[in-house]
């Protein structure tokens, strides 16, 4: 069966939202597709994934894949790709996808298109488009191998929604580890905890820069509450310890594209902009009228943030 194999990303026995962007890609390129759920709770996750129109859903659960270790995951994925005769493998370009996909590509002798934001078919040839040069160029590429591995940018492939129907669920076998797996011991994973929406999925993101200092939370949280927003930060704010490291938005942090992005006291360095310029509406609050962030903002407010933000919270309540 030619077609696309979508690799689901599981967490706590459920699909992470990233999975639905990879499914959206598979639906967009057309043809038949299957979904592979690998990891603890795969059987359960597979049931939820059966409503997306896949030809089948394959569930692989085994004590060996209890924790994500690429040297244990990749051989099984590779075997399923080969046995199933898939010509495309799609995963979302999260940390999971970016870690796994290139290793899988090398294993399969396949070309890899990383972090794509569009795909077109031109005379039977598939072309992928991806942001490069910190988002300042869009590069088109073509894969020359029979199998194509793709990771898709979550913000550019809106999550597919369940379309009903029930794909058959199969149990797949664990294919054994890479020899290198004996050199890897998974110790633990610490998950940053937050009651707020996840940065990658939030409809509104409020981000703060280093100028917020120790008042980062005190100033930004009321605004985030008023807007139902996730909180983000510049690298400078994270580095200084004013904001938690997992809040970093930008080239080295998260890529976000919410309906509304509010940049508070952020200068607009190109590495920051690379992670948020896909936002639909951008608001910047900065006391420097020449701050580069204003060049990409739809609405700019030149004011001291310590005055503007509390006022904004009040005004949002007043006008609601």
């Amino acid at each position, binding site marked *: 069966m030619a077609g696309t194999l979508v690799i689901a990303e599981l967490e706590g026995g459920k699909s992470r939202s990233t999975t639905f962007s990879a499914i959206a890609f598979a639906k967009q390129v057309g043809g038949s597709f299957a979904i592979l759920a690998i990891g603890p709770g795969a059987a359960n996750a597979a049931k939820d994934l059966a409503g997306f129109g896949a030809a089948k859903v394959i569930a692989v659960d085994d004590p060996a894949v209890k924790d994500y270790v690429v040297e244990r995951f990749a051989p099984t994925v590779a075997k399923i790709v080969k046995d199933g005769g898939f010509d495309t493998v799609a995963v979302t370009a999260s940390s999971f996808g970016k*870690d796994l*996909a290139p290793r899988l590509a090398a294993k399969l002798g396949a070309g890899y298109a990383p972090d794509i934001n569009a795909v077109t078919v031109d005379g039977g040839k598939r072309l992928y488009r991806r942001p490069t040069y910190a988002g300042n160029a869009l590069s088109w590429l073509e894969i020359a191998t029979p199998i194509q591995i793709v990771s898709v940018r979550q913000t550019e492939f809106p999550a597919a929604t369940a379309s009903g129907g029930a794909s058959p669920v199969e149990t797949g076998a664990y294919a054994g580890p890479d020899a290198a797996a004996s050199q890897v011991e998974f*110790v633990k994973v610490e998950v940053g905890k937050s009651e707020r929406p996840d940065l990658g999925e939030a409809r509104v993101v409020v981000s703060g820069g280093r100028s917020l200092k120790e008042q980062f939370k005190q100033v930004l949280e009321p605004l985030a509450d008023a807007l139902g927003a996730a909180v983000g930060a510049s690298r400078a704010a994270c580095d200084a310890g004013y904001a938690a490291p997992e809040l970093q938005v930008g080239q080295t942090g998260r890529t976000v594209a919410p309906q509304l992005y509010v940049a508070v006291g952020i200068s607009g360095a190109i590495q920051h902009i690379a992670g948020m310029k896909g936002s639909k509406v951008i608001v910047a609050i900065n006391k420097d009228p020449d701050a580069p962030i204003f060049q990409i903002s739809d609405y700019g*407010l030149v004011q001291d943030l310590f005055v503007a933000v509390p006022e904004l919270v009040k005004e949002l309540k007043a006008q609601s």
Partner: protein
Amino acid sequence: MKILVAVKRVADPDNLNKIKLSAQGKVDTTGLEPKASPYDDYALETALRLTENGTNTKARLGEVVVVTFGPKEAEQMLRAMLGTGADRAIRIDATDDVLDGDLVARGLKGIVDKEKPDLVLLGYQQAESESNEVGQMLAEYLGWPQATFAGRITTTDDKVLLVERETDGATAHVKVTLPAVVTVIDKIVKPKSVQSKHTPTTHNYADGVRFAALMAIMAAKKKPLAEQKLADLAPDATLKVRYANAELPPKRAAGVKVKDVKELVTKLKTEAKVV
């Protein structure tokens, strides 16, 4: 410990918003100063920290070899890195148009087979292509383990690394027995991010990467810089991906400045309709 650090010369990463498009639809970086990709500088800093006592960095306690794929001009970057502290450098003669990430990984495998390092360090991605792939591909080709997105590395015996991998919103702790491939993110150059067995645990490094002293740059002129042919390392030069044309993304037009908070909220409600 012997460490191989793979590095890439790129156009000034802080000014990539000044790139242009050539008439042929290729990205044109003319006018931008060539520099090492920042994450590769971080990889070199990591390698140096792992092979020294942080309280006496003059004595080298291991070997660091930097390797790049690039034209003759890329040797300037390698010389600078020798000045910073790397012990040897290798340039594989090749330009970007004959390479893809896969071929770079295969070429690096050729170097690893000859050099037999304990560890290969790379930036997690390079600043131009941002592909984030070479380290993982190299690990597969070598049959070695990989630890990507490393934000912290600790080792007590030079045989096992405890790596903290920064993944979306989480930190994964893994113990990796060498030889291995590790790719680093920016957090790796914070004062306490690299803890080698040679350095007292109380030691704090300066935040960021070190800079070469003038004396060291002069002395580095004597350090070995070898050239190798790509064909000797990776006989099959077939590329698996081919980059066609590029385009510039639509420019976001600068919008309006609002006079106060009240106007901002009104516009967000009635014009943008996002609140």
